[in-house]
């Protein structure tokens, strides 16, 4: 599964994207965030305020409780500031 990061989430994690093999039992976006936070302090820092970071699965906005089964690409990013 491919993970991509944008803006200050990208800077905190220290990479633009990565391929990950998830262990059993990670069913939702919130589970994935919890797992990522256990991988190192850069992830801990990026997701320190979980309520702030947004997620998208296959280019569609999703909530933390969204299932991740079958996802090709999951993105994490701050609230958007375009326009």
């Amino acid at each position, binding site marked *: 599964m491919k993970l991509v990061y*944008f*803006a*200050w989430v990208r800077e905190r994690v220290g990479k633009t994207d990565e391929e990950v093999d998830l262990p059993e039992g990670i069913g939702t976006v919130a589970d994935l965030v919890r797992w990522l936070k256990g991988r190192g302090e850069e992830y801990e820092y990026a997701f320190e305020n979980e309520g702030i970071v947004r997620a998208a699965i296959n*280019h569609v906005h999703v909530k933390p409780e969204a299932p991740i089964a079958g996802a090709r690409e999951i993105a994490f*990013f*701050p609230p*958007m*500031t375009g326009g």
Partner: protein
Amino acid sequence: MARMIRIQAEPFDAAAETANLTAGRGDIGALVAFTGLCRDEGGRLTALELEHYPGMAEAEIDRIAEQAEKRWPLLGLTVIHRFGRISPGEEIVLVLAASAHRRAAFEAASFMMDYLKTQAPFWKREHLKDGTSGAWVEAKEADDRAVERWV
């Protein structure tokens, strides 16, 4: 309905885009054009840098446009959003909404901008006069409230 969405680094020409949208059309009675520009924030900024999520940016703006077309009888809708480094005074975003009558055109353009600001995956970072990169621009609560009025 003529829907045109572009994400690009290059500047755009609002007058040329308007001419494209209305060319050969006799049915359009109202066209609202909104252009968002880069501000210097009281002289503090030399530029804004816009990061975007390629692929999702187009897809999300397309979904917002689809919602607008369902709500208002539009005859044309153009959205152009730039990314990359943009200097004060340069344009960032263009929305053109065309309809037979003004109310639909005004409301659709306003709706598009409210959703673009809060749902389209773009992020602004400030570049300061002293040559340093400043902070990422924080999302405004007022923008979230602006969206709520359409729900």
